[in-house]
């Protein structure tokens, strides 16, 4: 168990981080297209929550579309600037997906995402938080070093930074589930099964009529305790090779359930991408210093002969 957990020496290939990049970009693109018809309603200065109200809800140092609106006021109106910000965000996500000028694309996507999130802060829910986190990691770590257009012109796909990046994402997920599990176990609703019942009965979340669960309280009770066990056990059972796949799949199953029964598809998809990239995509650990190609027995034999 301790091996993969604390080991940071050597290099690892960037495929898990590349999977994170591709998955996050794809999910955020789908989400952006899903809310694009209501762009002005949620992010516009005269939307449901107007800019002066939204601005008091967030720290003043965070970027927001209104900064750009003021900057470009002599040249363009608020709606044009907001539309340009959204197009820039979507464009950066496309480049991130393809892995072209990956770092620049990631930074632009991250800052534009933050600006939109801050501007529409009243409507930002869990998926926006995880998108911020994932896009920040895409900006810092070498997510474009594999499975990307950038990687075609570079032979260096394994690096210390890729290994560290993967560890940071893995440890971050452990913190997420541990804290979430602790919060849940403290709540009576999670201990008596009412939490799942209440969640599936919320009218604007519920995808199916699950009111029949009231007649079978053992099912929500088991679902509640399974959720708590998966989340609390995550930080322990995700590390050993023997339990890693099973725990990652159980966690993905949990998020699939959230997607199917609560309709929180973007949130579920982001969490599935994070879990799959962090723990299911093989990292192919290497110990050789960078720049020295791996020397197989055949090559070594030739070298000795020379």
């Amino acid at each position, binding site marked *: 168990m301790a091996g993969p957990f604390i080991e940071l020496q050597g290099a690892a290939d960037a495929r898990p981080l590349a999977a994170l990049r591709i998955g996050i970009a794809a999910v955020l693109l789908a989400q952006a297209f899903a809310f694009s*018809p*209501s762009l002005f309603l949620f992010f516009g200065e005269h*939307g*449901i929550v107007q800019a002066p109200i939204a601005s008091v809800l967030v720290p003043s140092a965070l970027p927001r579309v209104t900064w750009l609106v003021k900057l470009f006021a002599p040249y363009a109106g608020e709606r044009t600037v907001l539309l340009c910000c959204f197009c820039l965000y979507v464009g950066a996500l496309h480049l991130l997906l393809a892995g072209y000028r990956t770092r620049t694309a990631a930074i632009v996507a991250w800052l534009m995402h933050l600006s939109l999130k801050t501007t529409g802060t009243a409507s930002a*829910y869990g998926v926006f938080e995880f998108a911020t986190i994932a896009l*920040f990691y895409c900006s810092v770590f070498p997510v474009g070093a594999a499975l990307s257009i950038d990687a075609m012109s570079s032979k260096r796909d394994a690096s210390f930074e890729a290994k560290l990046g993967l560890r*940071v994402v893995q440890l971050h997920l452990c913190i997420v589930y541990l804290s979430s599990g602790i919060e849940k176990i403290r709540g009576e609703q999670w201990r008596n099964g*009412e939490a799942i019942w209440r969640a599936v009965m919320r009218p604007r979340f519920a995808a199916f009529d699950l009111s029949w*669960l009231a007649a079978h*309280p053992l099912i929500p009770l088991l679902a509640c305790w399974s959720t708590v066990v998966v989340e609390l056990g995550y930080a322990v059972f995700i590390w050993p090779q023997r339990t890693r796949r099973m725990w990652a799949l159980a966690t993905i199953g949990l998020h699939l359930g959230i997607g199917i029964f609560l309709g929180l598809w973007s949130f579920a998809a982001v969490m599935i991408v994070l879990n799959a990239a962090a723990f299911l995509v093989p990292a192919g650990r290497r110990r050789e210093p960078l720049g020295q190609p791996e020397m197989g027995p055949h090559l070594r034999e030739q070298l000795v002969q020379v």
Partner: protein
Amino acid sequence: MIMGDRRHAVWIAAAGVHLALVLCGAFRVTPVSRGHFIGNVIETYRDYTGANSGYGFFAPAVASEWQATFDACSDPAHCISIDGERMSHEARLLLVTIDSMFAEDDLRDLVAGSYAARQFARLPHANVVLVKAAMYMIPSMEAYRRGKRPYWRTFYGWAFHRAAGRR
């Protein structure tokens, strides 16, 4: 090689500090108050990176859902209910998040006023907009078995009048 080791050490230290801040966010601890310069820098870093996020989704309890409904009136005797705006499933989730602010004492009036302004813009002939905030009351499983059913219960209401000369 020494340079490489030093670089690695810097990376590892930075990652360690970042994850410590993530841990603080997860357990709702503010390492240094925003009142101090260093605290302000740290909090800004946490805001930008998402390291201040809490992860207690649907925990420790699943909150009740809120919904805003509106009536538009040309005079006190003639009010009609206003249909909600058409939107995608994802956009509806954003709307649910806005409506959840009705649960916050210090935000409730702001959200209601903001909604009213939106309705005045949609309906130029309305002189008064009534905003009603209702919570979805879900009975326990046991109460549901005894015949109780979920329902919307209006908790708050506001009447907003269009300012004279504004249309």
